């Protein structure tokens, strides 16, 4: 018999725990493997998986004794991270059964993320599951649950379009660039100045296979250092007008108090570049690029406010998509519960079949010894049928006839009539 297992989820995330707590509880690369094995070794834990990112730690497990398991896991987290239980206990959430299933579905579909719809979390959960499967710490229940989780996440992504449009400044800039240039492969990029957001945008561009990165900085040395990071070239600030001739995307983020690129410079460059489109992303405040440049043909200028305007619209879309996503999660939770409840039925059916098979084999063996059915007389067969019916129905008959009754005899009778379809003889 398989024990009745509960699904239990213990964790904390960016909503329940401040960063000071999250950074104490988190597990880095190889620590995760050890922690996973240690968790699996806990007495009350049968199957376990561990997700640890900068925004959340989730321990998902199947256990026959959920209270013991919860206590052991919390003690383990405290011991492993060297932090007293009372410092983080209030930040933890505990979900069991349907709630745990719903939680993991929502997390994977990015409905529970800080930036709703961000795509990384699904990859992180897949990686965590791969580890659990590899170390054999997952079993029947978690395997099934995680496969459902991936399907649900995929369905939400494709049906609601929750991750379709950028909600961060740098991604929004990339999305715009793709609407102008189509493919970004082989496009040349000029970064003027430096800054977190601008550098992030350049990294995204490189990931989209942008080709050559030029870096212009007031201090040439800084430019050289940045250029090395992007595997590009540094140019002097004075060379910017010439560079406009060859680059396709300009990202500007300087501390200059005045305009860095003027309209007439761009106009001249445009003639030499034979009207090939040019996209300016101006992240600086005050602005570096003359906004009038946007009026020139085949040139597009977006400043920080324009980009914010774009993502605000996308954020609203994601919120609408999230509502649809929740509905899909609800459906999936119900479907999973049905499977989970069937899990109880399986051992019963196995037991029933085994019992019947034993009785029938014994009787058949007695009637035709050695499995040879040729010399069997017809009345011997009749005898066998009687014996089979008696033996198979002996226990049910005794129980049904028992006098004391618990008041639910009617229910029992009804169940038997239903199980053996005694009430509709027409049915096969």
């Amino acid at each position: 018999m398989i024990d009745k297992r509960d699904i239990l989820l213990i964790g904390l995330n960016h909503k329940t725990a401040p960063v000071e707590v999250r950074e104490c509880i988190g597990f880095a690369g190889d620590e995760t493997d050890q922690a996973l094995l240690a968790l699996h070794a806990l007495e009350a834990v049968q199957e376990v998986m561990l997700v640890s990112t900068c925004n959340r730690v989730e321990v998902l497990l199947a256990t026959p004794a959920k209270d013991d398991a919860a206590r052991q896991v919390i003690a383990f987290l405290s011991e492993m991270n060297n932090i007293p239980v009372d410092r983080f206990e209030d930040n933890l959430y505990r979900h069991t059964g349907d709630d745990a299933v719903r939680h993991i579905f929502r997390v994977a579909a990015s409905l529970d993320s800080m930036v709703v719809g961000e795509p990384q979390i699904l990859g992180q959960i897949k990686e965590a599951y791969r580890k659990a499967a590899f170390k054999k710490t997952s079993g029947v229940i978690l395997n099934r649950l995680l496969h459902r989780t991936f399907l649900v996440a995929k369905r939400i992504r494709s049906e609601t379009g929750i991750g379709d449009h950028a909600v961060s400044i740098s991604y929004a800039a990339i999305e715009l660039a793709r609407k102008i240039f189509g493919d970004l492969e082989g496009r040349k990029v000029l970064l003027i100045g430096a800054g977190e957001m601008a550098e992030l945008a350049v990294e995204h561009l490189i990931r989209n296979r942008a080709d050559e990165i030029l870096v212009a900085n007031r201090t040439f040395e800084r430019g050289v250092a940045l250029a090395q990071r992007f595997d590009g070239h540094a140019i002097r600030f004075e060379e910017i007008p010439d560079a406009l001739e060859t680059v396709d995307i300009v990202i500007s983020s300087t501390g200059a108090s005045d305009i860095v690129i003027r309209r007439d410079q761009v106009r001249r460059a445009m003639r030499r570049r034979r009207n090939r489109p040019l996209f300016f992303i101006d992240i600086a405040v005050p602005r570096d690029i003359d906004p009038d440049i946007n009026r020139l043909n085949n040139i597009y200028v977006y400043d920080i406010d324009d980009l914010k305007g774009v993502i605000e619209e996308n954020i609203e879309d994601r919120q609408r998509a999230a509502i649809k996503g929740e509905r899909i999660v609800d459906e999936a939770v119900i479907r999973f519960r049905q499977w989970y409840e069937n899990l109880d039925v399986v051992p019963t059916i196995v037991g029933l079949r085994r019992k019947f098979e034993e009785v029938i084999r014994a009787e058949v063996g007695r009637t035709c010894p050695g499995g040879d059915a040729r010399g069997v007389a017809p009345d011997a067969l009749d005898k066998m049928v009687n014996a089979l019916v008696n033996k198979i129905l002996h226990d049910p008959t005794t129980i049904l006839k028992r006098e004391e009754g618990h008041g639910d005899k009617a229910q029992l009778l009804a169940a038997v009539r239903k199980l053996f379809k005694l009430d509709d003889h027409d049915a096969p």
Partner: protein
Amino acid sequence: MEIGILGTLTLYALSTATYVTFLFIQKKSMYRHGVWLLSAGFVLHTLSIGYETYAAGYIPVNTLRDTLSFAAWAVVGVFLLFQYRYRLKVMGIFAAPLAAFTMAAVAVMSPSALVAKPVLKSLWLVSHVTFIFIGEAGMALACGLGVLYLVQEKAIKSKKPGFFFRRLPSLDQLDSAGYGCILGGFLMMTLGLIMGVVYAKTIWGRFWSWDPKEVWSGITWLLYAAMIHLRLSVGWQGRRSAIMAIIGFATVLFTFLGVNFFLSGHHGEFTQR
């Protein structure tokens, strides 16, 4: 072949409806249905024109009704080829309604009795008409792409990306597909004009006779030649190219329809109203 025309019209109209739905709800299956309906319509249309050609003994392009039907056929055919080459799903939103409206016009016009004229039975004429119409269909698609380009450009320039920004492909794709259509269309148009000139020599003994249709065809051809030249020499691409594609197609339409209605000439022998 009334039944052929009505059947074709129905399929084109259904395809239009499917494409419009696709524009709004962005389900891939919708777009596939759109292509299938349009392809089915095209097959029926081809059979119907083929039957008429067989019955009359020459290609049926001598009434306005017949030429419109032939033009719609060419647009759909070129679009299906284009679709195969560029995979710009959203273009169906232009091609399908164009074909459907043209066929609707064809359906309400009364068919005139076919009078077989020997002047119509020439391989030169068949090639002239076929090439010209295929070329014009290419220009029609280029015009549609130009309109979409301007819509998408407006969305990006005005910094209010919305409905169309998401649904339309990138400016680069629209621009290069439009240019592809113009190049292909121009090639076909040139071949068609050469056939026409040769045909004129065989029946009137002159290559060129300053007939209004000839003059306007020449103007159209020069316009497109200039467009291609400017793009190659000084980089007239993007917005300017899109506007030129629209102007170019307006000229094509005038040469095709306007000349028949407002000016007279020896092309009138072929295109009775």
